[in-house]
């Protein structure tokens, strides 16, 4: 009897407890939707996105060292091999240091439409919890990763330039020129093209406009939205698109290379002595590492591990292969033999051209882009360079600047959803914006011209400053003996 009573009490208590718990849960469920509109969910980190961006950052470093270094190194004479490797390695190291001191802040904080401010100098205020915007609402990555990822872009861009003045530039001139160039040319261009407030800031401001009652509240909300939209770089405001750096990286470095080659002059014996590449084996290894690393560069520029990254990846396969084939067949037809150097040069030209288009074009657009850029760059490095007689030693202008221009303009066309492109997101309304070819291509031209003028003029001034301070060019005897021994006191091959 007692037992039965007790058991009933126990059962009753249990039922009561369960009822309370269930009703608490039900209340919590009911309360949640009511609270939601007041406070939108805070942006969240996705471990997959972060893992992909950590990987991409390292892949872009791989592009520069050893990829670019070996690609360039194989193309010079053996007496200058180490000097080229050293120029690239030095560039990576000095830009990395400058980037955390003030580079990241100048490129990626608000300020003017032309350059950022110093609010994040020495990475001030950046913590383990700091977030960087991606291209999706409510999704961020850790700011430290974004800093590293963009750091590798800042490092490879000036490293591309050194190919133009290879085999004759004084090392102390390189040591001075690279920090000056990233400060006055790269950081402003990166800011102009890539800096913006991010999707959440725009969407929130646009929602506030929609929600505001007519009258002063509406005007204030609209002013706030205008302010958010204006918190961006000038080229971005024009509406030009550059997914992974056609203007910022390739046109920027390519024109700086051409200006350098013109100011420093031709190598001794250029056009008379043999200056054949000393190891196309190294160049092939380097070009292949560039291709592999470029997936971090292009697919990483999507900032998230999603379909956009996948699109950038397939485009980076297709355009590259098409450009390598196109260059190879063009050379076979015009020069009589399909060379390995031609195939790997076409590979790099294809990567350059697809860089701005990688997240915007469809794969068939990328295929066409590759087929076009291969022969165009082939024509520049074999015919235009010889006709104009400038000594852009490793064809930085012919491949990166010209390939970058083809890519930048091509992106404005291939982004068209009617051509299989991805279109451009309008974050104020949360859907793909209407596409108008004339508007987009004009914006792309403005981006190209801005980069050409800013980098062309800026680089010319900086070369002159360096020339006055330490002299751009090594003495004649040093150039004859080779920069490895005279500048670095070592030789590449002791056999």
């Amino acid at each position, binding site marked *: 009897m007692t037992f039965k009573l007790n058991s009933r009490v126990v059962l009753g208590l249990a039922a009561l407890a369960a009822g309370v718990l269930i009703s608490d849960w039900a209340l919590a469920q009911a309360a949640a939707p009511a609270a939601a509109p007041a406070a939108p969910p805070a942006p969240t980190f996705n471990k997959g996105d972060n893992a992909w961006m950590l990987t991409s950052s390292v892949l872009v470093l791989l592009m520069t060292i050893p990829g670019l270094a070996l690609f360039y190194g194989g193309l010079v004479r053996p007496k200058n091999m180490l000097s080229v490797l050293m120029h690239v390695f030095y560039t990576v190291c000095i830009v990395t240091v400058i980037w955390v001191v003030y580079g990241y802040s100048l490129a990626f904080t608000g300020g003017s439409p032309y350059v950022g401010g110093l609010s994040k100098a020495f990475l001030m205020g950046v913590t383990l919890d700091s977030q960087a915007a991606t291209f999706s609402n409510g999704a961020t990555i850790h700011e430290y990763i974004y800093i590293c990822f963009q750091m590798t872009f800042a490092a490879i861009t000036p490293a591309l330039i050194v190919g133009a003045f290879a085999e004759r530039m004084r090392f102390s001139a390189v040591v001075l020129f690279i920090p000056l160039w990233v400060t006055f040319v790269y950081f402003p261009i990166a800011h102009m093209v890539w800096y913006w407030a991010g999707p959440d800031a725009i969407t929130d401001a646009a929602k506030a406009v929609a929600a505001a009652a007519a009258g002063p509240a509406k005007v204030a909300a609209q002013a706030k939205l205008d302010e958010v939209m204006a918190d961006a770089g000038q080229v971005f405001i024009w509406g030009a698109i550059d997914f992974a750096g056609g203007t910022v990286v390739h046109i920027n470095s390519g024109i700086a290379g051409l200006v350098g080659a013109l100011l420093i002059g031709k190598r001794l014996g250029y056009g008379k002595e*043999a*200056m*054949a*590449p000393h190891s196309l084996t190294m160049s092939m290894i380097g070009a292949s590492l560039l291709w592999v690393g470029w997936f971090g560069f292009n697919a990483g520029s999507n900032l998230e591990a999603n379909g956009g990254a996948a699109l950038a990846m397939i485009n980076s396969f297709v355009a590259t292969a098409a450009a390598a084939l196109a260059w190879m067949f063009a050379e076979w037809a015009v*020069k009589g*033999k399909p*060379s390995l*150097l*031609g195939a790997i*040069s076409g590979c790099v030209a294809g990567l350059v051209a697809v860089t701005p288009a990688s997240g915007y074009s469809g794969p068939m657009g990328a295929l066409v882009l590759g087929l076009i850029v291969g022969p165009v760059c082939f024509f520049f*490095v*074999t*015919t235009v*360079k*010889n006709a104009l007689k400038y000594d852009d030693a490793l*064809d930085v202008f012919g491949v990166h600047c010209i390939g970058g221009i083809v890519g930048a303009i091509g992106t404005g066309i291939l982004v068209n959803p009617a051509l299989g492109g991805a279109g451009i997101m309008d974050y104020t309304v949360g859907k793909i914006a209407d596409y108008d070819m004339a508007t987009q291509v004009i914006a792309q031209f403005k981006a190209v011209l801005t980069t050409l003028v800013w980098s062309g003029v800026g680089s010319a001034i900086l070369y002159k400053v360096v020339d006055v301070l330490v002299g751009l060019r090594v003495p004649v005897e040093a150039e004859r003996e080779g920069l490895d021994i005279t500048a670095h006191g070592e030789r590449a091959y002791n056999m």
Partner: protein
Amino acid sequence: MKIVMAIIKPFKLDEVRDALTSIGVQGLTVTEVKGYGRQKGHTEIYRGAEYAVSFLPKIKIEVAVDTQQVDKVISAITGAAKTGQIGDGKIFVFNLENAVRIRTGETDAAAL
């Protein structure tokens, strides 16, 4: 004693060595050299830059032999190195005044 010096195509070296060994030659010296003769050079193209390569890689062999063996050596080299194409090379013969084997101090024919 004579020195027989021959400039041959690089890929013919092993055949020449076998031919000389089979007639009793006990040693020879090999050097990688470059040069030109009637076989002119070729053109290399790197992107737009064309270079005329006028010196072609060859192998120079030097063998010291007794005077009466010279004709056999010449025919052995000629037989082994000949392809019938321009660029097969040439053979030069010099007088040799003296020879010493460093290990034993033997001289002249005994040193060969």
